[in-house]
């Protein structure tokens, strides 16, 4: 019995959290509408705007996902070539 009560309370809590979270999201979306002026755009314009924005962001994220690791590796190699070379050679004879 107790278990179910607890369970119910947890569900209610989660529900409340979900509700708050939803409210928060819709508030966030409203702010987004206001700041980007999508608020005054007609629906089809809004969808164009959102599509363009989402595409741009997706492209940025994708390209950073693809290219940043490569660049980082290259950079690491480059710098280790400059600073790390000597270090390695001094380590080698000791072992």
């Amino acid at each position, binding site marked *: 019995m107790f278990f179910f009560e607890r369970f119910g309370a947890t569900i209610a809590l989660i529900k409340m959290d979900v509700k708050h979270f939803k409210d928060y999201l819709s508030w966030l979306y*409203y*702010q987004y*509408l*206001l*700041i*980007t*002026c*999508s*608020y*005054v*755009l*007609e629906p089809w*314009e809004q969808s164009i*705007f959102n599509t363009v924005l989402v595409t741009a962001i997706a492209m940025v994220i994708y390209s950073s996902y693809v290219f940043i690791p490569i660049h980082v590796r290259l950079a690491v190699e480059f710098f280790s070539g400059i600073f790390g070379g000597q270090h390695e050679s001094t380590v080698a004879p000791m072992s």
Partner: protein
Amino acid sequence: MPRYSTGEAPGGHSYLQKAAMNGSCKIENGGLKNGYVKNGVCPEDRILNGGLYKRPFHEAFEETPMLVAVLTYMGYGILTLFGYLRDFLRAWKIEKCHNATEREDQRDFVPLYQDFENFYTRNLYMRIRDNWNRPVCSVPGERVDIMERFTDDYNWTFKFTGRVIKGVINMGSYNYLGFAQNSGFCAEASAVVLQQYGGGVCSTRQEMGNLDKHEELEHLVAEFLGVDAAMTYGMGFATNSMNIPALAGKGCLILSDELNHASLVLGARLSGATIRIFKHNNMQSLEKLLRDAIVHGQPRTHRPWRKILILVEGIYSMEGSIVRLPEVIALKKKYKAYLYLDEAHSIGALGPNGRGVVDYFGLDPRDVDIMMGTFTKSFGGAGGYIGGSKVLIDYLRKHSHSTAYATSMSPPVAEQIITSMKCIMGADGTSLGRERVEQLAENTRYFRRRLTEMGFIIYGNSDSPVVPLMLYMPAKIGAFGREMLKRHIGVVVVGFPATPIIESRARFCVSAAHTKEMLDEALSKISEVGDLLQLKYSRHHFVPLLDRPFDETTYEETED
């Protein structure tokens, strides 16, 4: 002067630094003050102005936060892009153009409708047009009824639903003293006069339209203003735009405040005089123009100017600022120029006796050469007046287009003005008028204080019943108006071209007819919408305690 370019707003500095960096922008009365002076304990007031001001003069124009300015420009950028897209679609006939367009057979003519200049109206204003010209169907008192309407083509046309939104709290009408009534002694007196004289006059003042009511009104106005004579007109706008040309002409110089009302601007342009603009309420700027005018005279010929006329307003209706009249008068006397003071918003609303800015500063009305004002605001009537010396008024009676060619004021309106003015003067034997003037001052201070406490950016003088609340972003103009009406508060929102492009605002007009409950209700709704739209931009709350200067007379948090 009070406009800050955004570049001037150094984020994250203490106020003292900000003020120093903004130089003259923030300096009020010559002291390092920002209008946030504790209870007006300010010995500088007197010392620094050579005793010009008899009361503390607090005006605040908080600078636009940098981030807000950037976002606002970004918003306009996005809207402009979409405007181009829509214009492109219209040009290719993909979308129907609802705007006025050139006729097909006149295609190669010079465009009649200036297509590009209408860009703003067509593509930006149209999107939020539902916030303006809402039809009101009751007396515009402290509460109004508004006809509900809807649009199914994105604000190009409106249809009525047949319902009425009742009891909307009116925070928009210039009903400062609450004389916009359909009952009470003013309305009764007007009704009696309507029965006696009828509604129209059908002639001009110079011909058959000079009624005894007009004469009575003019004597009363002269007495009210404390001047020798006065002349009244049927329309306030025409009072300005038709009388300035009678007073100035070719070879004259008009010095006009940059934020003057359209009627003053039009009058100045019609007069044919040279017009020079000084920065809003900036006495250094005015003095420089005056000195240059005296030193250099007219361009090319270097003859002295025939006369120099300074045009200022009492309360500026978009900024809520009050003219620095004592300084203007001092300058005018020093350089022997004439002063034209438009008291449209200040007459009735300012001063312990409700007699406008002159009363507010405790000055002599005879120091102002031409006292102009309107009856449309505090008196709940219509029309305008000019007061001044007998010579001036006699001259205007002969030379003004408004007297010669415009039909004179409707008698019931004249009666409304007479009764309300007598009430303000106390000539009706009651203290009702005085109470209203005091109530207005109290409401104004309360409303302004509460809004500032809530963290909104409020412009203007702490005594001005015009209260601009800054919105900045274009989408928020529309959202604010709609959300407020949803909550049964009627407000006026203002954007470009009435204000600079980024400084969109909502403008409240406090009235003596607002009760404390109404103001509290309006304030709580404003706060609610302010939270929803994130309008509480003011950063004056976040002054870290240690950063605050110890000197009492400099910055303090806003408190009364």
